[in-house]
């Protein structure tokens, strides 16, 4: 036991050495992984954009798609994407917001409401394809309207309704209680409090939710294939709600997997680039107000 002290000390130092080594390795490892993720995502975006953007022309963006020959465009599909996005938001946002406000403010605390909450949460994570099937059962089989823009848009709205409800409820619940109590103390009714105090305070959360929902609706494809079909009416600016409503995302899928046009690869390269470009623009446009707000609050 002569060397007990030195032994322990030796053990300690070697331990510390090991610990520091492990720590460094770990830090290095996490840095490496994170760098890899960033590089990978940038490479992915670059790959998609670089393949499609240089050869992009107005003729392609505004042009009509073709079934057999080369040189088809994506005009109607692109238009349908935005048109259906707009209709679905017009349905889902007011309904979802109202339902969220009810759950956050008016709902009594009982078993029924907590069951509804579980259902909404469950519905928010139901796969989109189930909503597509629901759309088929509703529009194709019950109302017999076939594959239409309105069917697709309403199904998209159903898909987004639970998400919108949850986001609104959470945003309103996150408003400090003082705000609400102050409004009540000034003699405001419950509805006035909600309109004048709660919604303005919660608006950034609600807007974030709307953006989330809009992005999801814009890129959604399974619902659209089942309820709005894989063809367009073949006309630009077709506002008819009962014409078939293929969107850009669906067009990309269709060209890749089923179409017989000879230039399928180039069409899908360009369509993917347009899709990603629009999503990037969405993101940037949506971040600018947040940045400004952050600057102001500093």
């Amino acid at each position, binding site marked *: 036991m002569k060397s007990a002290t030195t032994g322990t000390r030796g053990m300690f130092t070697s331990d510390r050495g090991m610990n520091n080594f492990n720590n460094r390795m770990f830090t290095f490892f996490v840095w490496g992984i994170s760098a890899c993720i960033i590089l990978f995502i940038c490479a992915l975006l670059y790959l998609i954009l670089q393949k499609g953007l240089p050869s992009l022309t107005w003729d392609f963006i505004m042009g009509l798609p073709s079934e057999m020959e080369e040189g088809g465009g994506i005009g109607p599909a692109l238009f349908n994407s935005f048109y259906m996005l707009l209709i679905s938001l017009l349905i889902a946002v007011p309904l979802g917001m109202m339902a969220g406000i009810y759950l956050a403010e008016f709902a009594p605390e009982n078993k029924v409401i907590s069951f509804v909450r579980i259902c909404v949460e469950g519905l928010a994570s139901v796969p989109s394809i189930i909503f597509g099937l629901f759309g088929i059962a509703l529009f194709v089989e019950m109302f017999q309207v076939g594959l239409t823009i309105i069917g697709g848009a309403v199904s998209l709205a159903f898909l987004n309704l639970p998400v919108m409800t949850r986001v609104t409820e959470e945003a309103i619940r996150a408003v400090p209680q003082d705000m609400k109590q102050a409004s009540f103390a000034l003699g405001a009714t419950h509805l006035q409090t909600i309109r004048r105090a709660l919604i303005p305070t919660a608006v950034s959360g609600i807007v974030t939710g709307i953006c989330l929902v809009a992005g999801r609706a814009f890129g959604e494809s399974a619902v659209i*294939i089942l309820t709005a079909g894989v063809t367009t009416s073949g006309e630009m600016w077709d506002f008819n709600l009962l014409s078939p409503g293929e969107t850009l995302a669906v067009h990309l899928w269709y060209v890749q997997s089923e179409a017989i046009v000879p230039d399928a690869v180039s069409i899908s390269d360009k369509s993917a680039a347009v899709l990603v470009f629009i999503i990037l623009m969405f993101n940037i446009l949506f971040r600018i107000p947040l940045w400004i707000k952050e600057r102001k609050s500093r």
Partner: protein
Amino acid sequence: MAQSLERQKAKPHLVEEWVGKIYTLICILFLIITIVSLVYFVASKGLSTFFVNHVNVADLLTGLKWSPDGEPALYGALPFIFGSFSTSLLAALIAAPLSFCAAVFMIEIAPKFGRKFLQPVIELLAGIPSVVYGFVGLSVIVPFFRDVFPGQGVGIAAGALVLSIMILPTITTIATDALAALPKGLKEGSYALGATRWQTIYRIVLPTTLPALMTGIVLGIARAFGEALAVQMVIGNAPHIPRSLFESASTLTSAITLNMGNTATGTVANNALWSLALILMLMTFVFVFIVRWLEGRSKI
């Protein structure tokens, strides 16, 4: 007199209050009707395979062969169920460690840089349409696998890889929130005892945030389980259980998307697809249940 005047003045507010309440109530009722009818449609159609067309439940769940046109017609959905589970679990297996590293990086190691660059970039991933992932998978991953491994390149491995990119933002966001919500005292106590960062994360942070991390992983699996077209594009769509990861396979969602348009309403083949949808929906509810259970645990 003055009192009655006051009462009249107060009335419009009360009326407004009631109108607002009723209007929001109608909206929530609409939502409930949607939920009920969705579950009703899928369940009634999915169950009619068993009750109207007399397909055996056990045959559907464990049958290995899906041939609606065959003689006799066989509806064995096990290959699809297997495909769905293997792709989504494998995707979570790939994405979870990466997400955890990204979250640790953003919260513990380089908060400023992480929040400014890594987070927006990862959130960007969540916004990219799933078809674009499928397209990238088809034009980059599948040819790569075809060159490197035996087989056609399509299959469970390609599907899982595409899905793992898609669920990365889901898991990362939840893991980041969990790490950020950890009480500071725990970590500081560990540092004060002389622990290194690695020891603190491994011994303190990981065990305490584990339920929340698991929540993220389950939500990621749920998303991967329900994803339709991105997987359908790269998995090959052969209705059998593959012998390797690089052999053409099929999932519940890909079977539904591919065959729904080709079958007529009311036929057995169509109803069987609705049964697949029913399985999909029930699995989603199981995932939601697991998430709620985990959330209950993480509050303790």
